[in-house]
């Protein structure tokens, strides 16, 4: 292979060591970042971008929550409020949640975990960053010049007749979709072609399995959303009438096409999170995954069945009873795959060696949110209950539990777990636990009242509401403040630790995951001159580790 000139010693667990010559400083200057094709640098760029998006979406969320503090108008007009929740949804989904874990941690760690020196198409990888920036720029331009007031679901005929500027936001989402497609394509090809010798399919880390499942959804579902959003934009601007009932169009067709993507998109958001916690639970329980195959294949199962459940968003749309039945049953099967994972993660703790560190705290939060979010999801799929809950705050609370509770917990778990690997320094553990507790409590305080509001019958996207919904809304807003406070603490201590944190060393968690073999931060070519040798699976803690992770002399190009 191609040994770079960097002479990086492979990791030794005994001596904490900062790798002085790493991917962060080997080249310097803004230009070297803008033109980089290094998957690690691209991952870091995405980290900065998605945290910016999270902040923006969080501001919108707080504005929405403040508006709902009183039953009547509080701080803004109905039009502004409608724009705020739309922008909150669009920013959080398209700019934060879909790219968050795959494009940050997937980019950074998937090649390293596979023993590869980059993703399959490094320059396409850089292209995704620019597509993301372009899509975000167009969408932001649309937000500043009018914004959309349709909700992120863009239901026709409202979205084709509204006076607000929907088209730029739709176009932005289309371009972000292209970015997502290319990332997914890159990961699939990387997994197929760049596994190092010794990493067979069933020795792939579980992180890789779930990212692979995610990538399949990204590649197969996003184009349908793309064309659907383009049709809405065309209809909004030119009046082609494809979804316009006055011209014979069918608004329900839009809902089918929209959810054909957007339901699998939920799994684009939550599968990567499952990917992260599968790694975290093994590392902090020092245990092999109980049922590796069950967890690996359930990721593919979710990716597959997730394509056939979209109709459960249309139970009250007047679709035929038979349709409702079929989609209801299929939705149950998605639930099963999730249940399998939950049981296996829990069983992994059995006979383990559990260390309650910050990433593990987020794993616990994740498990809690996933169980509740998943179970309420199953409850929603029992068609009759959905009739009451459809389009109420119950649904809002349900998908925030899954998407935010799930995705955010996974993102934060991954951020804390891999922070020492990415930047070579540790964050303060005490503050980490404090903010984890704040966030988990804040989450529950925000969204449990919303479940109850849904039960009471408060529909979503309400600007004003009857007085009997008041107390629970106040509770929810209070919880949201707690949540925001937790995020601010994290942001502060992580930024401080970048410069002033103690040196972490190559493997501060004593993890046997493949990514911990290399130095922290990793060298530009990931492993230095010697290729690591993989003789065992990624989550095996039943034998003594060899004192120095094995390395081989630089090999001649090897056949796969």
């Amino acid at each position, binding site marked *: 292979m191609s040994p770079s000139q960097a002479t990086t010693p492979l990791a030794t667990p005994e001596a904490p060591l900062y790798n002085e010559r790493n991917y962060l400083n080997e080249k310097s200057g803004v230009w070297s970042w803008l033109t980089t094709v290094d998957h690690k640098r691209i991952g870091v760029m995405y980290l900065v971008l998605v945290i910016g998006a999270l902040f923006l979406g969080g501001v919108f969320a707080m504005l929405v929550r403040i508006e709902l503090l009183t039953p009547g108008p509080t701080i803004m007009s109905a039009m502004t409020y409608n724009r705020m929740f739309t922008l909150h949804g669009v920013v959080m989904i398209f700019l934060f949640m879909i790219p968050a874990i795959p494009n940050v941690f997937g980019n950074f760690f998937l090649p390293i975990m596979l023993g590869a020196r980059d993703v399959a*198409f490094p320059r396409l990888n850089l292209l995704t960053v620019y597509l993301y920036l372009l899509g975000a720029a167009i969408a932001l331009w649309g937000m500043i010049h009018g914004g959309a007031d349709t909700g992120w679901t863009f239901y026709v005929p409202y979205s084709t007749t509204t006076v607000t500027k929907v088209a730029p936001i739709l176009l932005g989402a289309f371009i972000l979709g292209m970015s997502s*497609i290319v990332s997914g394509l890159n990961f699939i090809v990387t997994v197929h*072609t760049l596994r190092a010798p010794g990493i067979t399919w069933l020795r792939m880390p579980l992180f890789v399995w779930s990212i692979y499942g995610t990538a399949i959804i990204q590649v197969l579902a996003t184009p349908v959303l*793309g*064309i659907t959003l383009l*049709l809405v934009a065309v209809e909004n601007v030119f009046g082609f009438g494809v979804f316009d009932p006055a011209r014979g169009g069918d608004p329900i*067709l839009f809902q089918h096409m929209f959810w054909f993507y957007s339901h699998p998109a939920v799994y684009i958001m939550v599968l990567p999170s499952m990917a992260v916690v599968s790694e975290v639970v093994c590392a902090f329980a020092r245990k092999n995954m109980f049922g590796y195959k069950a967890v690996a294949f359930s990721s593919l199962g979710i990716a597959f069945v997730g394509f056939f459940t979209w109709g459960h968003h249309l139970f009250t749309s007047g679709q035929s009873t038979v349709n409702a039945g079929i989609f209801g049953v299929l939705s149950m099967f998605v639930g099963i795959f999730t249940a399998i994972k939950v049981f296996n993660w829990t069983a992994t703790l059995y006979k383990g060696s559990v260390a309650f560190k910050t990433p593990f705290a987020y794993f616990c939060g994740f498990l809690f949110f996933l169980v509740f979010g998943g179970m309420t999801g199953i409850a929603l799929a029992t068609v009759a209950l959905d009739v009451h809950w459809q389009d109420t705050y119950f649904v809002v609370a349900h998908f925030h539990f899954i998407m935010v509770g799930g995705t955010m917990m996974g993102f934060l778990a991954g951020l804390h777990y891999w922070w020492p690997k990415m930047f070579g320094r540790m964050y303060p553990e005490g503050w980490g636990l404090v903010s984890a507790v704040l966030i988990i409590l804040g989450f529950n305080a925000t969204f449990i009242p919303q479940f109850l509001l849904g039960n009471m019958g408060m529909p979503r996207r309400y600007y004003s509401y009857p007085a009997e919904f008041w107390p629970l809304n106040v509770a929810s807003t209070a919880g949201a403040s707690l949540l925001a406070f937790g995020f601010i603490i994290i942001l502060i201590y992580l930024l401080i630790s970048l410069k002033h944190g103690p040196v972490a060393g190559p493997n501060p968690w004593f993890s046997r995951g493949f990514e911990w073999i290399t130095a922290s931060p990793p060298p530009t070519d990931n492993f230095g001159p010697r290729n690591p040798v993989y003789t065992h699976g990624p989550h095996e803690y039943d034998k003594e580790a060899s004192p120095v992770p094995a390395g081989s002399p630089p090999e001649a*190009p090897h*056949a796969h």
Partner: protein
Amino acid sequence: MRTEAEVTHGGEGVPHLAHHYSNLEMQAHAARLGMWLFLATEVLLFGGLFTAYVVYRYTFSDTFVAASKLVETHYGAINTVVLITSSLTVALAHHFVEHRQSRKAALLLAASVFAGLVFLGIKAIEYTHHIEAGELPGRYYSYEGLQAHGAAMFWSLYFLMTGLHGIHVIIGMGVLAVIAFRTWRGAYDDGYSTPVELSGLYWHLVDLIWIFLFPLFYLI
């Protein structure tokens, strides 16, 4: 295309080999897999429109039959022949690149680009006819001869689907033109043919989509 420029940081002096691949076969395999996945996304992109077509064809079947009599089948038929021929020339070009006959390959690629131009020219004539007759999408529809519910929908779908296909033809022509130029300049004289193969795959897909559009709008 992406692979050949990675020569700059290719490993161990093997031409065309990017540093993170161990051998050329694996790299070509990756490129091909990536291309097929990309083609799958293209199929799904059009899949959304085909779904819409099926739904509205079912809803307004009589109107769609009446409207499809307004498109002139012989233009469509000629275009089908033109595109199939261009697919043949692209396939032959790949064959000749593999057998290190770059000049022949470049000429065949150029012929494919020319076929794309012919296709677009004929499409432009058709579009002009439709626009003059008022056979237009949605609210622009003003054709007196067919005033049935759903007629405007036929033209919405017609222009959306053939338009999106036309954009793909233009992109394909651009790609083929660049590849033809590079082939002529001898970039693939050493038998390294992945870029030619992949651009050919894309062109075949564009062709294939037309093969579905033709019967849907012209024949049935």
